[in-house]
């Protein structure tokens, strides 16, 4: 196979990040001013120095754990409520009639616009931020769960019903595992939106937290500090969405993967193999025939 090996792919990914950093460093250190103005922009070295200083202090770690606690609490709540509501709306006409209109009216409201609501409702900022984070992730999870449950093959449920399985059994053995690939699509989107909202909410009303710190740095014109915040958000966001992605892949390992397709598809394209295009289908036969014997 002519495909890149694992190591080569990681090298390529590292090169992509490095190139971006080098470009940033060059543009800022040379004070490039071509319509876009990089003269006021902190260089990579400035940001790295500021980052190093922050890592040594307590505040950085307090901010980090505060933000992580908020997002994880909000996201987990959203995951549980989103999956439960999505399943209920998809499976029960009563739930659909009761909750459907309400959800559709609230859904278009950006979660960050709920800040006033959060301030009115919750006794502390902390709970307000978690509420906003949760509201942000809830809708993608709920909507994708609803779609995934509705798209389930009816035969699976009928099979379990003819085995004498009741509602609970169908839910546990068919609905939840079958909808899992779709649910994880929603969770991946949800964790992304959660970050946006937790950072914005912290900027508006937070006490500590990466978003709060970034905004503070901006107000005191500490631009390298602002970039330290952004880099931190970027890394945390990447780590959490990778975690969701990995968990999803682990739990849906049963899905037929098509990862081998690029390899097999590449073969006919190689010039040397172009000639025996005719007998190619017959070459496949032995494989099929062998399968039939297994049957």
């Amino acid at each position, binding site marked *: 196979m002519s495909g890149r090996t694992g190591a080569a792919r990681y090298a390529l990914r590292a090169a992509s990040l490095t190139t971006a950093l080098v470009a940033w460093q060059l543009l800022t250190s040379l004070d490039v001013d071509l319509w876009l103005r990089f003269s006021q922009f902190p260089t990579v070295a400035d940001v790295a120095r500021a980052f190093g200083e922050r890592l040594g202090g307590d505040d950085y770690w307090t901010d980090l754990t505060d933000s992580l606690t908020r997002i994880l609490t909000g996201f987990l709540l959203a995951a549980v409520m989103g999956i439960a509501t999505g399943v209920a709306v998809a499976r029960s006409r009563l739930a659909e009639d009761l909750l459907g209109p309400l959800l559709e009216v609230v859904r278009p409201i950006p979660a960050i616009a709920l800040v006033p609501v959060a301030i009115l409702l919750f006794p502390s900022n902390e709970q307000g931020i978690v509420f906003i984070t949760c509201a942000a992730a809830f809708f993608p999870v709920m909507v994708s769960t609803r779609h995934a449950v509705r798209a389930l093959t009816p*035969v*699976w449920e*009928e*099979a*379990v*019903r*003819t*085995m*004498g*399985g009741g509602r609970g*059994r169908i839910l546990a*053995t*068919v609905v939840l*595992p*079958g909808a*899992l690939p779709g649910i994880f699509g929603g969770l991946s989107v949800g964790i992304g939106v959660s970050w946006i909202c937790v950072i914005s909410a912290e900027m508006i009303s937070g006490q500590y937290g990466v978003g709060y710190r970034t905004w503070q740095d901006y107000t005191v014109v500490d631009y390298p500090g602002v970039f330290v915040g952004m880099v931190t958000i970027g890394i945390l966001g990447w780590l959490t969405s990778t975690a969701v992605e990995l968990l999803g892949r682990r739990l*849906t390992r*049963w*899905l*037929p993967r098509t990862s081998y397709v690029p390899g097999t598809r590449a073969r006919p394209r190689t010039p040397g193999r172009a000639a025996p295009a005719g007998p190619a289908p017959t070459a496949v036969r032995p494989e099929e025939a062998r*399968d*039939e014997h*297994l*049957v």
Partner: protein
Amino acid sequence: MSTSSDTRASTGPATAATAATAATGNEPVPVRGTRLTLRSATLGRPDSTALTDVDLDVAPGEILTVVGSSGCGKSTLLRTLAGLLPALAGAVEQDGQRIEGPAATRALVFQEDALLPWRTLRANVELPLAIQGLARAERRRQAESWLERVGLADRSGQLPHRVSGGQRQRAQLARALAPRPRAVLMDEPFGALDAQTRAGMQDLLVEVLHGTGATVVFVTHDVDEALFLGDRVALLGSGRLTAVREVPRPRDRTAHDDPAWVALRREVLTSLST
């Protein structure tokens, strides 16, 4: 394992096991089949009636094949017997009891892949046993034994999409028979398989059904399959049950030269083409 026991699995694995040994020791093969009856039944969905005025009596332990062109209501008949679809009119009964909904005593084998794709073949076969409340070790043992009977012992740890279509249908057969249903309803189970595989599956079906005593309703659009498997063959056409015929020499591949068999085959083919 013994399949000749009349004991319901709900009485517990231990009693079931002892009863099974006792049964094989003393009695001949007890009749485990069930009688399925339709009386002036109208079947279908409320917005589209598929079959009207169906009178059919399937005797305990009998294999009844149902033939008809596609869309004639074969699957509707089967789903009604399974309890997935309520009859629009008339009576649908199992041993004189009205069929109210699906039950584990009537297993359904589907044409397409009804195996749960996230469960291995063994876990799929274990599922009905788990629903019946068997302990983990016991259901594993039974599932393995059924997979062995259908020739999938070495495939039990595979996911359904990793095995061939024929193997998936064999696993479905094992899943249907493992909880010892009293009736097995089969909806064109071999319809998607090639001719060679299909013949092998028919032989396997006859082999694994032997001794279970279960009543079988087998829907197919393949006349030869219907005449090979069925004790009787029911013909469906234009929304009605048109005829039920006894099959001479069922499950005998050499019946092809029997004039009565040839005549019946001709009759069935004619009824399908009209």
